[in-house]
């Protein structure tokens, strides 16, 4: 391995080891949370609702839950890790190393991405065993999940870098992310909403992400798949470019 490869591998390993050291909180809790949702919305409500758009209700809900697990964990991990290291001053160790802004940004991003991927994969595996979760369009599912995970990793990095206190991270998670996810149609179809809520839902970017992932799993979508994929790719590229620019400028990282 070259010195640059060792450097990047170490930066990334540090991020992964951080959440692996507190597995109960970083992997156990989100897994439990997802299964509670499956129990309540899938098993309890599912017995009443039966089907949505011809799809068994629990199969309609699980793709959204998998996407939610991926995005929330990617976001939370990166925002907390960066803010915590800023508080301790420990981030100076990475910042004073020869690592480039791109290496630092990718390593911080990949920590949350891997955590989100682990939770999402475990949720999918157990759903597969419990309810026989299908995968109808793997070529849409894989890039969609990858983009969703990467987008929220970047959003987590951006929030962590900008944040000056833990309240700043909690604010984005509780007052921005959570409402957008819940109102993005994880548990219902936007077509069932009265106006103006049906139209409003279409302004929620999470709605398109949930539909892409749902299409990948069960083949049902309320939005255009190519257009949504294109928009998600553009949004992910844009937030990555913003973060890279902030890292290069040292925004709130270097005095």
């Amino acid at each position, binding site marked *: *391995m*070259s*010195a*640059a490869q*060792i*450097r990047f*591998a*170490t*930066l990334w*390993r*540090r991020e992964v*080891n*951080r959440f692996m*050291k*507190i597995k109960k909180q970083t992997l156990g809790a989100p897994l439990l949370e997802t299964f509670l949702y499956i129990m309540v919305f899938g098993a309890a409500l599912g017995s009443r609702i039966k089907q949505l758009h011809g799809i068994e209700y629990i199969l309609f809900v699980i793709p959204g839950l998998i996407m939610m697990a991926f995005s929330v964990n990617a976001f939370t991990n990166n925002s907390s890790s960066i803010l915590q*290291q800023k508080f*301790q*001053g*420990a981030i*100076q*160790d*990475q*910042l*004073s*190393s*020869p*690592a*480039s802004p791109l290496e630092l940004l990718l390593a911080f991003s990949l920590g949350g991405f891997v955590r989100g991927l682990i939770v999402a994969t475990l949720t999918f595996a157990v759903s597969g065993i419990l309810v026989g979760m299908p995968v109808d369009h793997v070529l849409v599912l894989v890039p969609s999940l990858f983009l969703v995970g990467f987008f929220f990793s970047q959003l987590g990095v951006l929030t962590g870098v900008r944040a000056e206190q833990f309240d700043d991270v909690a604010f984005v998670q509780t007052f921005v992310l959570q409402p957008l996810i819940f109102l993005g149609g994880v548990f219902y179809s936007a077509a069932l909403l009265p106006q103006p809520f049906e139209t409003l839902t279409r302004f929620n970017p999470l709605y398109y992400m949930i539909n892409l992932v749902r299409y990948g799993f069960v083949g049902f979508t309320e939005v255009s798949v190519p257009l949504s994929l294109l928009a998600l790719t553009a949004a992910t590229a844009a937030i990555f470019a913003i973060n890279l620019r902030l890292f290069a400028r*040292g925004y709130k990282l*270097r*005095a």
Partner: protein
Amino acid sequence: MTPQALHIKDLVKRYPNGVEALRGVSLEIAPGELFALLGPNGAGKSTLIHCTTGLAQPTAGEISVFGHDAIHDYAEARQAVGLAPQELNIDWFLTAEETLDYHAGYFGMPKRERRERTRELLETFSLTEKAQERTRTLSGGMKRRLILARAMMHRPRLLILDEPTAGVDVELRLELWHYVQRINQEGTTILLTTHYLEEAEQLCDRIAFINDGQIVGEGTSAELSARYGVANLEDAYLALVGRNELSRSHIEVAAQ
């Protein structure tokens, strides 16, 4: 011509709030020197160090380390610098051993070499028994030792020690002095900031005074005392900060 270990020219650092922490600092440290930077709190010592190590971005000026640009094309320059900062900035999640291992990894050191170097420095700084302990459980003195070990992990040619003996007991301070002298004799250039003037006087070849973001005096301890027309480095320092009335010679005269 052999490049200087540290070359700083007309360095200016203005923070976004308008505070000008460095106002045209120029400084040269030759390879192999043990150099002290002295000055009151807020004089600009840490800002100068942060600019050299990439933790602060200079507003204007030049910095090079062993001939490598430390501002724009910084990879080689940072590789050559080891920083032991004033704050105990270690990661609570890591063990002492991981702290050293990760640091060396950030500087591209291969695994086997990292393992050997970690063992060696844990031993040198009497931390072997604490290798697997999380850093937050270490005492203040142990954390200080760990930070020094971390700075040395990647075998930097220029070691920057920002008040390394602040808040440590006498025994550790003397141990550190011995260690600093030893690695300096082995060829490492050292830039030391301290508030203990006797430390600078005993350890360092040359000393610079910084005040209000400017270098206001530079030379050996004897040269600086002569420049201010006083008997020792402490009085020269007091002359610099405009507090001559605190000189021990005044106190002794008053006691008589």
